[in-house]
């Protein structure tokens, strides 16, 4: 589903964010990307979204070499990837329902599809009661659920999450992780960049650890810290 071959990324100047990374993430896998800040996690995600170009190497997303993708096709690449963020990135002047519907409207989906899918996905994340609430009337965990609903409403094969539990307390984090695992079980490839030890250790999923832009560990049923398994 996602494959990186000898990918390096050097930012302007000479800041090296990724050095010669190669990895393969299969369809329907659930992968944690861990490492301290500055280890290259964010760059990894930005490259998959084609927000940045790799300095070297080849990246395949959903079977396509995204380096070869012309600029105007980039929006169509992103329709295959749902994104979840630490700061939720919800629109404060739209209701829960409108925030989720927005993701379908802006890619030109017809109204009857929107009317059918939006309530269903909001129900799935457990927010049916809050359809007409605005983001500032919701707790952090609820806002993250809206964000996940928005990422998933278009049914993308891949879900990328950048520190999804970064702003949440432990029990709320556990709820969010349960939700992400359920999405994974229903067939979505999930990649989570995090430095939240607790969620990684609890899930016992594949862990890729980055340090100084290199993959220093790739473990099938890993924990956050080295040698903790």
């Amino acid at each position, binding site marked *: 589903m996602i494959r990186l071959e000898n990918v390096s990324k050097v930012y302007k100047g000479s800041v090296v964010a990724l050095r010669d990374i190669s990895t393969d993430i299969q369809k329907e896998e659930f992968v944690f990307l861990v490492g301290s800040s500055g280890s290259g996690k964010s760059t990894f995600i930005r490259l998959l*979204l*084609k*927000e*940045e170009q790799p300095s070297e190497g080849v990246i395949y997303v959903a079977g396509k070499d995204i380096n070869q993708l012309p*600029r*105007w096709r*980039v*929006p*169509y*690449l*992103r*329709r295959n990837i749902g*994104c979840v963020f630490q700061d939720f*990135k919800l*629109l404060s*002047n739209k209701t829960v329902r409108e925030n989720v519907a*927005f*993701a379908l*409207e*802006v*890619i*030109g989906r*017809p*109204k009857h599809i929107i009317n059918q899918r939006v309530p269903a996905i909001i129900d799935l994340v457990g927010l049916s009661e809050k359809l007409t609430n605005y983001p500032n009337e919701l707790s952090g965990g609820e806002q993250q659920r809206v964000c996940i609903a*928005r990422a998933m409403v*278009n049914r993308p094969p891949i879900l990328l999450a950048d520190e999804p539990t970064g702003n949440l307390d432990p029990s709320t984090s556990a709820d969010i992780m349960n939700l992400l695992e359920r999405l994974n079980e229903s067939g979505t490839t999930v990649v989570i960049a995090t430095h939240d030890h607790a969620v990684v250790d609890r899930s016992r999923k594949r862990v890729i650890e980055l340090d100084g832009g290199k993959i220093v560990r790739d473990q099938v049923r890993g924990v956050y810290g080295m040698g903790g398994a």
Partner: protein
Amino acid sequence: MALRVNYFVDETISNLRRNVLLTLAAVSTVSISLLLLGVVLVGGEVLKKMVSSWEDKVELNVFLRDEATPEQVEELGSSISGMPEVSQRFFESKEQAFEEYRRMFKDSPAIVENVDPNALPASYRIKLKDPNQAEAVAARLQGQPGVDEVQFGGEAMKRLLKFTGVVKTILYIGIFLTLAAAILLIANTIRLGIYARRKEIGIMKLVGATNWFIRVPFLFEGAVQAVLGALLASGFIFAGKVFGLDRMQEVILFLPMTVGSGTVLRVFFILLLVGIAIGVFGSTLALRRFLEV
């Protein structure tokens, strides 16, 4: 595609409504900028009419000697008509000159009675295509058989022509400056509006909206704001014409002070086009920064 148009229209209306303050700020900026431009355009129209009414009054008077023979008068007339600079030529006989004189002083019969109907000379009155050539034409006619004297306003007219030239230059500079100011103000307002919604644009890009899909509502908004601004500005200009210029014209009769409703309509269309062009162009330019990857 019908569904998309619906989306764009809904999105434009709800954005305009949700950002009432921004919309108001944008519309008032647009209308003030366009108002400035409109005032200069209408003012220019009035000035042009004034200038051409002055220039129309520039006339060469070729006074004829009393002893000139009819043949000389005839020949002079046809040689004037043959000059390429001349646009019109009238002959005024001694009788017509006296009639005119009597008409001018009809309120003071004493002045009229003291003048011998024969004392006024016959003359040719000449209008020129370009008033600047008056001096040259006068010099050529001076001294021809039968000609007594040629008057062309001399220094006074030269000064008038210089003045109207300066007025025209100032007018063009004014149009240029107000147009430039309007472009800057409107483009800046659009940029503020887009900056206020950069988060929305970021999310749209993230969920895979194409650049055109992101751009179109902004272009619609820019255009709607431009139309509202142009309507408002033209409303003020029309009010200014009815309550300002038209009133002044009633008092000041000797100069053209006002413009027709047709001119106001023409100015409205100019403002509309300028507004929409700037709105659409400004949005496109301001969006470029936010649309890059």
